Structure formats: C-alpha cells, structure tokens
C-alpha cells in the first residue's frame, strides 16, 4: 500500500518522498514508542525485565550459575555481542554439570515474542503453554528483556 501512496504523492508534486517499506510492524517489533489507543495498555516489551542476566556460549556453566544465583535470578539468556538470542537457561539447565560450556547446557532456539504483543495475550499464551519465562526480542532477534509469566499474569489482571 505504501509504495502506491509514495508514487502518487510524487505525481502530485511532492519532491522528496520516502517509503518506509517495513512499516509499522517493523517499528513496533523494535520496541519503539507508538501513539494511539493501544499505547495506553502494557505490552510484552514494557513488562519484560531488562535486568535479566545474560551469558555467552563459551562461558563455563559453573561460573554463570554462581553469578546468576547471587543476583537472585533463576534464568539466563544466552546472547552474542550483538545481543542476538541464542538460547535460554532456566533452573533445570542451571543445575547441570558446572564444567559444561553454556552452549552445551542451554536450551537452544527458545520461542521468542515481539515487544508489541499485548500483555493480556502474553499472559494467556504463557499460561496455556506453561512458559515460566520468555525472551522478548526485536524482529532481528535482539534481546529486549525477559518476560516472566508471573509478571504477565499480574499486569494482565490489573488491566481488567
């Protein structure tokens, strides 16, 4: 739709016309602010915990576990230098052999969700699929934060 609009504007005499082809979906998937009636309602990106611990694939599990549990967490998101999500470790994975490298211990390719999904929808999905936590990522796979099921359910309840 936007290419047609861009071409038509040019033909109407507008000299400098640009087409943001990836559009609103791309904008929202990057976790950027929007305006409108939906903007007042919390979304996955708003509620996700930005302070979630992260680890690299080549770290030793024992080192990561010590660091993570000392900060009160039971989950770690495995990312690269570009913050692209490679895996997730929850309690079960954290309890594995401390000599393992993270890449051998992690749950690879976890399901991720976009920041614009409503918190009500996230609460329903996470409850239905028994997800205790889910990484929230941009459309290019970069970590925004970790959404905990208990946070999603609590905030969705407050919305009612």
């Amino acid at each position, binding site marked *: *739709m*936007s*290419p*047609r*609009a*861009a*071409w*038509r*504007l*040019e033909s*109407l*005499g*507008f*000299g*400098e*016309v*640009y*087409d*943001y*082809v*990836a*559009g*609103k*979906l*791309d*904008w*929202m998937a*990057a976790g*950027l*602010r*929007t*305006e*409108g*009636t*939906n*903007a007042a309602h919390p979304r996955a990106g708003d509620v996700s915990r930005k302070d979630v611990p992260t680890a690299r694939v080549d770290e030793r599990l024992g080192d990561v576990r010590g660091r993570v549990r000392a900060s009160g967490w039971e989950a770690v998101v495995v990312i690269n230098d570009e913050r692209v999500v490679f895996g997730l470790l929850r309690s079960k994975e954290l309890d594995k052999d401390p000599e393992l490298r993270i890449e051998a211990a992690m749950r690879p390719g976890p399901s991720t969700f976009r920041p*614009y999904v409503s918190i009500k929808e996230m609460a329903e999905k996470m409850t239905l699929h028994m997800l205790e936590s889910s990484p929230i990522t941009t459309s290019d796979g970069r970590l925004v934060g970790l959404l905990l099921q208990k946070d999603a359910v609590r905030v969705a309840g407050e919305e009612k």
Partner: protein
Amino acid sequence: MPTEIDRNQVQRLVERGAQLVEVLPPDEYEEDHLPGAISLPLRRLETEAVRLLDRTRPVIVYCWDTA
C-alpha cells in the same frame, strides 16, 4: 522515484522535519501509529494530500509492512 528507507533513516528524517504519513485505514491509525504521524488513508490521498501536507518538506509514507 520514491526512496525506500529503513527505521533508522525514518528517525533521522523526522528529526530533520519530515512529515510522517500513515496510509492505513483510520481505525488502524487510531489504535497505533508512529509518533507524530498523520492519518491519510490511501483512498483519501487524491483529495487531501495537497491540503494536509507541505510540498516543501520531505514526506515519509508507511503502512503495516511490505504487503
């Protein structure tokens, strides 16, 4: 010929004073739109573009995605 741009270029152009235009139907605009965007659905472009937009400033149009 209109120039295709990405998210970062949108932000830079808006800082420079570009006009952001959502061409989706009004109900979709009401729910969510980019900050500062105006609603100008494709069907109203012919009749309202000249009245609502400034020809001397850059214009960025967008819809939902590439479809």
